[in-house]
């Protein structure tokens, strides 16, 4: 007799997906919380790292993929250094970010992190090498806070750390091949 209920096949639950892609045994975390305690940015996160592990266990996919927390992790690895089980929590964060991206899930609020990342990458795609000052000015202009870092900027200028040339970024010889990497990745992902 065929079963009427279609049970999830092995390897298809959210927990199993995350475990397979991150290589970390999420279900084995015993919730000591040292990853969250050591994380330099857990105060910026809407969900703490140890809570994230618990939520994966319970299959709470949507709130996790929309969370600010997964976009806040910069992969510094303090969680791994603190974990008594040697767990690479940042790998789990990375996996969640990649799943969110593949599924087209946008963050509910990202404190400017995602938009900054994209501006940064646009700058690299255009110039081949990052134009730090150009990026800072563009980010602050887009956020309507052009004067925010003006004191620090003025000090850098005064000290000769940055010059007038930095305000007019130039394309390096590497701009063309780097631009092609960006375009080819877009094409590749369009094909998949």
């Amino acid at each position: 007799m065929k079963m009427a209920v279609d049970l999830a096949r092995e390897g298809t639950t959210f927990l199993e997906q995350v475990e397979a892609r991150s290589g970390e045994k999420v279900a084995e975390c015993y919730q000591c919380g040292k990853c969250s305690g050591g994380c330099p940015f857990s105060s910026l996160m809407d969900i703490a790292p140890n809570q994230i592990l618990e939520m994966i266990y319970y299959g709470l996919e949507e709130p996790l993929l929309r969370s600010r927390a997964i976009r806040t992790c910069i992969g510094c690895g303090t969680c791994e250094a603190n974990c008594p089980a040697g767990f690479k929590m940042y790998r789990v964060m990375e996996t969640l970010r990649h799943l969110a991206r593949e599924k087209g899930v946008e963050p509910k609020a990202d404190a400017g992190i995602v938009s900054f990342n994209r501006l940064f990458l646009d700058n690299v795609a255009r110039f081949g090498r990052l134009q730090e000052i150009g990026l800072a000015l563009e980010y602050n202009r887009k956020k309507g806070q052009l004067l925010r870092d003006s004191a620090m900027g003025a000090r850098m200028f005064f000290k000769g750390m940055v010059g007038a040339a930095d305000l007019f970024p130039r394309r390096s010889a590497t701009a063309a091949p780097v631009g092609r990497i960006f375009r080819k990745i877009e094409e590749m992902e369009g094909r998949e």
Partner: protein
Amino acid sequence: MKVGYYPGCSLHGTGKAYDISARTAMKVLGVMPEEVADWSCCGSTPAECENPLLSTALSARNLALAEAAGHEFLVAPCAACFSHLKKAGLEIAGNEKLAAKIRELIELDYQGQVKVLNLLQVFVDLVGIDALRKKVKKPLTGLRVVTYYGCLLVRPAHVAGFDDPVNPVSLDRIMEAAGATVLPWGAKTDCCGASFTMTNPEVVAEASGKIMLQALEAGADLVVTACPMCWMNLYRGHGYAREHFGPGKTMPTVYFTELLALALGVSPRALVMKKHLVNPYPVLRQKQIV
């Protein structure tokens, strides 16, 4: 010996003082840095967060260029560049499918023959502490420093593959060999706030401010760093420390290569220490180092 040199975007921008002192100190010790022609941005944290394939491709392009130039070692002074370049090499190694994809993207061959080194490894492993000590002409006697490593130089541990992820000592050994007094402190590998310097400067100010406070409590004259991003963020911390703990509650942050170059007998004029946001000259004069 010759090594490939990957300055990265910051060392061509706000981190010029690091670039100049790093090249100078290496040359005095017989390591000749050859800048990789046509290098491009490693993609840093934004690429890693946004798109793993992009991140690997942007970094791998530089590995391939260094390999084509015949370099065995590629030296990346910036902690973030070091971490991302090295991670890309590790991901490609043993994954032929990814390697083929990367070759198609970067339009270059890459056989995985280049070893990525950070600058501490150059002095500890290529030069050696004993050889370095013998070349010290003006020891930094009486200068009390705390060594600040931050995150990506030593973590994630399997990427850095170097020193200890929580209590590293390689920079301590270098500074001791240069004659400085290295003080024990607890913020060696605390995070400075990294790329949140643009999006959440108040978070960076607090994280770095607490690092500055610990340096003060340790009784240091200077904080010594090995990363242009940490250096920038510690300046935000400098402001925070002054605001929250009172005037005078702060100290300059310098690159370790600047102190090393001075100890090796390089003239301060050959460096650009005046470009520091917090002037280190008063304390260096007081200790009769410059």
